[in-house]
């Protein structure tokens, strides 16, 4: 019996993107994150290169 769900381990920019893509396909996603909030390293950044856009 194949399960319909996907587990994403890590709630940084990669984990969030993967989870959102899967959810858009209608798949149930479970995300596991070590810290109290998702966002990861990217949330700690002020701006991003090469456009100097805000990270959050």
């Amino acid at each position, binding site marked *: *019996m*194949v*399960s*319909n*769900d*996907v*587990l*994403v*381990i*890590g*709630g*940084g*920019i*990669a*984990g*969030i*993107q*993967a*989870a959102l*893509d*899967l959810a858009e*396909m*209608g*798949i149930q996603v*479970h995300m*596991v994150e*070590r*810290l*109290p*909030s*998702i*966002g*990861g*390293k*990217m*949330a*700690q*950044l*002020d*701006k*991003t*290169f*090469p*456009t*100097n856009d805000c990270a*959050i």
Partner: protein
Amino acid sequence: MEQVAGDVGSFQVKVRKKARYVNENLCTGCGACAEKCPTMVVDVFNAGLGNRKAIYKYFPQGIPSVFTIDATACRQLGQGKKCGVCAKVCQAGAIDYEQKDTTVELDVGAVVLATGYEVFDPSVIPEYGYDRIANVVTALEFERLLSASGPTAGHLDRPSELALEREIEEAQKELKKLQRQVSQLEEKHGKPSSEIVRQFQSGGLGESEDLRKWALLAQDLSALDGRFQSMTHRKASASAARKLAFIQCVGSRDFRFNRFCSSYCCMHSVKEAMIAHEHDNGVSSSIFCMDLRAVGRGFEEYKLRGGKQANIRYVRGRVAEITEDEAQNPVIWYESTVSRQVVHETFDLVVLATACVPSAGTSDLARLLRLELDENGFFKTDPLAPLNTSRPGVFVCGCAQGPMDIPESVAQASSAAARAAEIVAPARQAVG
């Protein structure tokens, strides 16, 4: 993650859900608890440059917008003292000191690993003095200094000045306490402290223990006052960091630590120098590198723009040592490969472009999932199927498989999502 059984198509996973000590369904994220919480803790999100309370939200925009109690720092939970302030002020009644860790059991068809990376700890490089010299910071710490929501609200204050501010605050508290004690004694005896100190120093104070204590207190007060004055004077003359140095390949491309290139740090340093210049046009930056790797769409142009518009100087050379002068300015010693001489230059602040290394839990997770790691400790992938780990049904994206920048992480994440969907899709069709 505690336990994994099964195989591709149906993994049975046990996950430990850590107690927040706050009911997620009741907490409104208003922050009244953190306002009143008496315990200060070093703020990890701000790279240790600021403080937060024991009940906290990891960062203001954090999702879920729910507070969490740091059980080790909390007076009630960690230290067994009576406190309960947060429970008293919480109007939603969300605080739950009795909450326990729970185990969640999941049955999933595929697993996507996106466990990211950790910043290399530069204190193992003694010549760069990261531990010794206050004004040597990592790129991530500098990022928090630049951020409008960071500990300095985006002003480029130097860490030495931040430490001075904290010292001044503490001295002020101590000063008030001593002043109160001394003035109480002055009132009690109806004499000024200066007279007692004079008598004490000339040895004419007699045997009275009370008076002796008073004299010592008054002496402490004047010493502390002197120190306080000199500190506030130093603070008044301090200015924001304007002459910056960035040192590339700290912990990467270094055979003592990691042989690999961390790939994003060249552009990261150029970006930080540009943003610093945007905040204050008087900022000039020097980037010390072996070679500046601007590989990516628009990156080369970005680097050149930094040089032309943001006062960035690119210096070819590997920095040998950082020392510190009397004004707590870092001094960089390096060999100029152009003039072939060993030269030194003083800066206000030095930023270390630290390597991207595997996150601490990587090897444990690999053991749990029975995955192989590569020679650098990242999850091993197949060169022709770059999202596949050594186990079918488990995919890896982002810095968990090696250093990469944000656009590449995002692209990989979408690919990994698609690969995972391939596995679970037949099941959905069968059901639907």
